[in-house]
């Protein structure tokens, strides 16, 4: 069967949609506003001269535009999204409803603190959940996302070393398998990065780490380790690692991107951790929103807690005060301010709504199911795929591309073929230490039936590859709103915005 071509370019329910700039009716607006109370102006000579160039659309056109765009997206609401390291779990709508309560949505960051005691209580309650779940002394709530939380943790470490007369400590030791944000964040603190390889088991080799610590002596500021690591494995020797790091006078930063695997089962304080960020948009179910926003509260040990950035909520008698200035009161040694206002408050509401819904018992069940689902996928997929490491894995499992050797099919091809099967592809080519990696994280919110459907598709693709049907893969995906896009063209001649001439060019190209 070949698909018919249509005059409209639409394919049934797959509806093409041009840019808003191509739907302009000059003077049109979808927003009616009341009349002006006065015609006076006090702008000085600062009036804008000339039009901006924004298109005019009516409300029905705008609603249709974004509805059609939304239909070109894959999402966790519509299907299985096994992106390793990203924790794409169900996003409960209760969270959205709670964040939209007028008492949370319609409050201003600078209204008197006496009139925002409920907001203070919410932040404090969310903070208490996070410190209790981690066993840590304090939490800096303001970091906006995971990378921002890493930055917070490393800055606290820098400030602590400075306060202890250890400013010569400028080296961060990071495993090769780390997320790219780790070395990027270290650089923002003026640190240099030394990497250590993973051993054949996919874990940090403690002998290598000890050697590195010895080599760099009293210049090591911290060791950053993701745990469970990016190979989906728990660093068994975590406590020994922490002891070695502390013996060297350095701090132990744990990247909390994978906290979902262990939440409610152990407290990272009991592993000897000094700082860890928590991605509320992963572990605590707040939506990814096509790229953000997230929140990256950073839990800190007692040694680092005094350096936490402002603002912080402080209990005072029956109520709360907001400590907003570094250098004063409880924020005497605070390293400064990392973000405007009080942090990602709306994300805190959603995360707290989730934590309260789950309860400590539900969270333990969730990490158990997340790990069970990942191990189940690993067991079943191993029928055709080649796992990179021996199990059990934690919340995600990683396969290498040995099973594709000699087939002419690549990891990328498998991923694109999965799109035609109706699944979002797993994370590919990460971690870098695994050749042709496929990193699969199912999360706890997938049913066994959903996992089985995915297994059926992926196993059939693996068999197809082994049968020498490489050509079919190179054409994939064929059923998605767009087929493979030319990224080389996009990068060589970047078109990053609409301009009238660029559109004319596109129209000509289409004709």
């Amino acid at each position: 069967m070949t698909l018919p071509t249509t005059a409209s370019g639409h394919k049934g329910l797959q509806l093409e949609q041009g840019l808003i700039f191509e739907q302009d009716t000059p003077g049109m607006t979808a927003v009616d506003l009341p009349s002006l109370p006065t015609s006076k102006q006090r702008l000085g000579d600062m009036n804008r001269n000339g039009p901006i160039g924004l298109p005019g659309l009516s409300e029905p056109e705008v609603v249709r535009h974004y509805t059609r765009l939304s239909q070109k997206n894959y999402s966790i609401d519509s299907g299985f999204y096994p992106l390793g390291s990203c924790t794409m779990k169900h996003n409960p709508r209760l969270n959205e409803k709670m964040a939209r309560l007028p008492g949370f949505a319609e409050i201003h960051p600078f209204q008197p603190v006496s009139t925002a005691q409920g907001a203070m209580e919410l932040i404090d309650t969310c903070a208490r959940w996070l410190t209790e779940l981690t066993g840590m002394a304090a939490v800096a709530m303001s970091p906006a996302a995971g990378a921002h939380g890493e930055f917070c943790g490393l800055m606290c470490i820098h400030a602590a070393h400075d306060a202890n007369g250890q400013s010569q400590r400028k080296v961060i030791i990071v495993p090769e398998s780390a997320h790219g944000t780790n070395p990027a964040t270290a650089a923002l603190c003026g640190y240099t990065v030394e990497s250590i390889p993973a051993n054949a088991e996919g874990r940090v080799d403690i002998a290598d780490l000890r050697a590195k610590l010895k080599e760099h002596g009293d210049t090591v500021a911290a060791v950053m380790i993701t745990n469970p690591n990016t190979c989906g494995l728990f660093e068994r020797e975590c406590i020994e690692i922490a002891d070695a790091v502390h013996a060297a006078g350095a701090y132990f930063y744990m990247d909390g991107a994978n906290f979902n695997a262990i939440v409610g089962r152990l407290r990272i304080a009991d592993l000897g951790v000094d700082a860890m960020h928590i991605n509320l948009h992963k572990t605590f179910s707040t939506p990814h929103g096509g790229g953000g926003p997230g929140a990256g509260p950073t839990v800190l040990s007692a040694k680092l807690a005094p350096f936490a950035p402002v603002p912080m909520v402080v209990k005072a008698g029956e109520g709360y005060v907001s400590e907003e200035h570094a250098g004063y009161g409880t924020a005497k040694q605070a390293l400064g301010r990392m973000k405007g206002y009080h942090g990602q408050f709306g994300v805190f509401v959603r995360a707290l709504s989730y934590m309260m819904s789950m309860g400590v018992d539900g969270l333990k069940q969730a990490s158990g199911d997340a790990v069970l689902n990942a191990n189940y996928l690993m067991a079943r997929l191993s029928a055709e795929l080649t796992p990179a490491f021996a199990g059990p894995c934690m919340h995600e499992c990683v396969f290498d591309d040995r099973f594709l050797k000699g087939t002419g099919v690549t990891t990328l091809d498998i991923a694109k073929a999965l799109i035609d099967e109706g699944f979002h592809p797993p994370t590919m080519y990460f971690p870098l230490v695994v050749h042709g990696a496929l990193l699969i994280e199912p999360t706890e919110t997938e049913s066994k039936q959903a996992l089985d459907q995915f297994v059926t598709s992926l196993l059939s693709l693996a068999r197809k590859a082994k049968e020498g049907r490489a050509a079919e893969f190179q054409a994939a995906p064929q059923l998605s709103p767009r087929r493979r896009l030319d990224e080389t063209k996009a990068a060589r001649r970047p078109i990053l915005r609409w301009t009238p001439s660029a559109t004319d060019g596109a129209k000509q190209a289409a004709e």
Partner: protein
Amino acid sequence: MSLRFTKDHEWIKVDGKIGTVGITQYAQAQLGDIVFVEVPAAGRALKAGGEAAVVESVKAASEVYTPVSGTVKEGNANLPDAPQTVNEDPQGAGWFFKVELSDPGELDGLMDQAAYDKYIAELSA
């Protein structure tokens, strides 16, 4: 004189005191479609093994290191607008920069064609 090579896959061809530097056929193939090139400005002082230029594909970014010390005479002005030249003719029109050598003795530490061929054969094995 003939070509000399580094372990980082740069080549250099010397004519009198001036060396022309680029990346090898092997390097361009590993990078894939090259989308961006940054070449050094004339007059910049380079130290052997130091960063001299940048080359990027869609998914990878890499430094180009100078095989020899010296002063940049000229960056290849065509590359920023036509980075695909590096894919098409890496050891010809896709050269990156010309450098006036300050220590021709440094060339002795580089590989000749036979040694480089052997080196990449080992990498691919």
